[in-house]
């Protein structure tokens, strides 16, 4: 009896994997209809990140260490440069409010460009830092409004075991925070030069 059970046990041990996968969720842009004109975006609302084939970063035309990318991205997103009184004024931003940087988080766009030879691990690190910048800002706002981390709320919202009544409540909160700092991360087609 025990032998048979052992045999089955070992079979299941060998053929199975326990871990659930985790990773960075991203949405790809839909194929745009060719006739549509691209919207005009002010230069100051775009934060360009360029990765070359050696894994070096060019952020806003400056050679940057990957470790300071998160801080720079956060400063850009949180800048809130629109003057107070204007309709685009960002009341919750805590940035420098420099007029030459982004107007408000809803307008701020991060544009990522990489080379075909860029290593995947470098790309993931950059993605991780940029998502991290959004998450940190969202956490800050969530703490201020709901006394709870955004990432925590989102995880509970996405968990299939959460009851639906709680989900409805969380959905509103998650949406509200997402509207404060919408994730606008655009990726250009990869180039072969530079």
């Amino acid at each position, binding site marked *: *009896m*025990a032998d048979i*059970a*052992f045999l*089955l*046990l070992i079979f*299941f*041990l060998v*053929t*199975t*994997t*326990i871990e*659930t*996968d*985790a*990773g*960075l*969720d*991203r*949405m*790809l*842009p*839909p*194929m745009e209809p060719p006739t549509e004109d691209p919207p005009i975006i002010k230069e100051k609302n775009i934060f360009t990140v360029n990765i070359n084939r050696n*894994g070096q970063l060019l952020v806003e035309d400056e050679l940057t260490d*990957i*470790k300071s990318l998160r801080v720079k991205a956060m400063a850009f997103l949180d800048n809130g440069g629109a003057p107070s009184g204007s309709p685009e004024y960002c009341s919750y931003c805590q940035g420098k409010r420099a007029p030459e940087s982004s107007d408000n988080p809803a307008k701020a766009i991060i544009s990522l460009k*990489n*080379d*075909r*030879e*860029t*290593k*995947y*691990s*470098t*790309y*993931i*690190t950059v*993605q*991780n*830092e940029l*998502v*991290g910048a959004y*998450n940190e800002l969202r956490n800050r706002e969530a703490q201020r409004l709901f006394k709870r981390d955004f*990432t925590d709320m*989102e*995880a509970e919202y*996405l*968990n*299939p075991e959460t009851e639906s009544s709680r989900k409805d409540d969380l959905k509103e909160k998650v949406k509200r925070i997402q509207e404060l700092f919408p994730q606008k991360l655009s990726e250009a*087609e*990869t180039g072969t030069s530079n």
Partner: protein
Amino acid sequence: MSKFAKKKDAGLPAVNTASLPDIVFMLLFFFMTVTVMKDSTLKVENTLPNATETKKLEKKDRVIYIFVGAPTSQYAKQFGKEPKIQLNDKFADPSSVGDYILQERAKKAQELQNVLTTALKVDKNANMGLISDIKLELRKVNALKVNYTTYDGDAFNNLQ
């Protein structure tokens, strides 16, 4: 001789193993319930990069997997050392990714077809050219939700 005389000490009695099958069965059922079958053998190197800002891929039935990496030593002779795409059990070109996604999508239940995620399990040493080709193919078939599957860990470890 009294009935209750102490027996002569015969050493320690053997451990009773009658409950062993129960214990083993319990373990067996535990593993049977918490695990999922491996559905494809990896033919490519697949050391994933690390990241901290991850989200869990909750439901396995809503995920389509694409593996990318250099062929393992066993296949390196035949297919070379450049990173390749593995779909199900075969090596494939970027151009066949779209068909594969459509095929897998058609296999899923109707109500799941709009909520599928494509999990990209890419080796950390692969280069972005191949990934961009895959992404373009995914956009063509409107499979826009992707997940770059990673390990949990400090993202800066990737750079070494």
